[in-house]
């Protein structure tokens, strides 16, 4: 802590500690910076392995090229729609369900039955294959609603919201009751407004979750036009399989591959997360430290 300690051992520790932590910080930042540098460098420089942490032959060609790629924008648009619809649907379900579940057993006798149902679904699943066949039966292949609903109810977030509601002082609710408010009025005018910070946390996590998800996008799509952006990147941005090639083949394949363009696509896919990142940071500490509840 901030207690002065002038011993030599402590001074040496301070110096090493600063160097180490700055190095750790750089290790988290530089890989992302590297992608930006590659996307801004010439193809030749990238293929020759000249680019490290500064663009070589700065140009915007890759970004100009992306403008002409319909598939990329199609996938981007799919992801935007998925995030918008998914966040709206999830939030509505989470907040509505969290209120009755935050009632005591006296107020809502069946509460525990619903809780156990939720918990069981959070801890157990039938596995990938039954899930996939069920989605096929629902005809959610190549369907935006498949990308929104297929993951199932975000039970953990319901529990998070429920805990927030539970921890609100009960006097507020009792005052509203005395004034003649019914459950919907209490929910809309007391519970939801007071839980704003927690709702912000859940909203941001839901948005990032939908944006980042790629597996459902992969197995629930039969054509490229249905891919969300992450799946598009996973499939389209060819990462060369060096494993099965010899050195000459690798050199040949590398020349054909436009790494700079791929890097530009990866960077664009990161931008939405980077944009909400400051808000995420503001709220997520609360989000995870309030995961448990006292009493």
């Amino acid at each position: 802590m901030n207690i002065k300690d002038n011993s030599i051992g402590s001074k040496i520790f301070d110096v090493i500690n600063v160097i180490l932590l700055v190095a750790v910080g750089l290790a988290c930042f530089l890989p992302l910076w590297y992608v930006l540098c590659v996307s801004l460098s010439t193809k030749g420089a990238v293929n020759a392995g000249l680019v490290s942490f500064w663009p070589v032959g700065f140009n915007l060609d890759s970004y100009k090229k992306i403008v002409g790629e319909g598939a990329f924008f199609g996938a981007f648009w799919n992801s935007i729609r998925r995030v918008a619809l998914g966040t709206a649907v999830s939030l509505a379900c989470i907040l509505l369900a969290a209120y009755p579940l935050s009632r005591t057993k006296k107020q809502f006798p069946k509460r525990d039955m619903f809780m156990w149902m939720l918990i069981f679904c959070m801890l157990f699943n039938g596995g990938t294959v039954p899930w996939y066949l069920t989605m096929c039966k629902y005809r959610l292949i190549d369907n935006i609603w498949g990308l929104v609903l297929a993951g199932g109810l975000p039970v953990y977030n319901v529990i998070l919201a429920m805990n927030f509601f539970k921890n609100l002082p009960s006097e507020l609710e009792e005052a509203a009751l005395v004034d003649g408010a019914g459950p919907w009025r209490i929910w809309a005018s007391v519970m939801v407004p007071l839980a704003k910070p927690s709702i912000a946390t859940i909203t941001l996590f839901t948005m990032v979750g939908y944006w980042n998800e790629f597996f459902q996008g992969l197995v629930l799509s039969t054509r490229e036009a249905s891919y969300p952006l992450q799946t598009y990147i996973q499939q389209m941005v060819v990462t060369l399989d060096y494993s099965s090639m010899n050195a000459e083949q690798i050199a040949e394949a590398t020349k054909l591959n436009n790494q700079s363009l791929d890097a530009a696509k990866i960077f664009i896919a990161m931008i939405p997360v980077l944009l909400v990142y400051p808000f995420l940071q503001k709220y997520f500490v609360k989000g995870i430290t309030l995961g448990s509840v006292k009493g």
Partner: protein
Amino acid sequence: MFNKKFLKHYYIMLIPAIVWLVLFNIVPMFGVVMAFEDFNPSLGMWKSPFIGLKNFKYMFQMSDIKQIMSNTIIIAVGKIIANLIVPLVFAILLNELCIRKLYRPIQTVVYLPYFLSWVILGKIVLNIFGFVGPVNSVINYFGGESINFFGTASLFRPLIIGTDIWKNFGYSAIVYLATMLGIPPELYEAAAVDGAGRFKRIWHITLPGIKMTVALLAILSLGNVLNAGFDQIFNLYNPLVYSTGDILDTWVYRVGLVNLQFSLATAVGLLKSVVSLVLITLGYWMADKFAGYKLF
């Protein structure tokens, strides 16, 4: 206060969530009957011939199941241990940082990878460790031969665990840092007055102060023993590293959804789900018993 009139409204409020839960969480669970059938898509789930435990017997006779099991457990347990210790060390070091101005910037930057998907991070990692990537450039600069990092079976597990730490340690450290903020500063001051140096203070105050948190996180991670991280491995592996990197989830995906051996894949998936359920339940039970942690 019990108000009978309210009950109806409580049920209405639960409808959307419960419908979603039933259709997308519960209905797929019934599909596990396929594990006990010789599933034939044209006959459907309820008319395919029932064959009892044959799929499970076959599964235990397969030559690769042992390898997949041990890959899964080694990678998962490696990650659990690393993800308990590295964030702890990082949190202690960050807590001791003497230039306080650096505290926020470092914290801000270390969380960042946590919020990016493994698709993105996987591509970045493959580029950085690629043949013409910066790591091999450095190796070449010092006169070494380029290494095919993600094509070498013996390097795969360390790389998987290492990159997983890279993604998660900053986020995991939040819990530790929050707990450390709760340690009363008077304890440090009193220890300093008593002549305890810095390392003694870390050892006798900081560590005991977060002991419970570490134990709780360790217990709760019990449920992850069979979770080696599908997203990460799926985005980083290739046939050359199957021997050390193929895990239950990736195997189930390939056998079930690529080779369409539905019954066998369901059986393996079911085994994983059941074992995980037992472990998670055990974890929560122990957390409740020893640390008073309640999920709800």
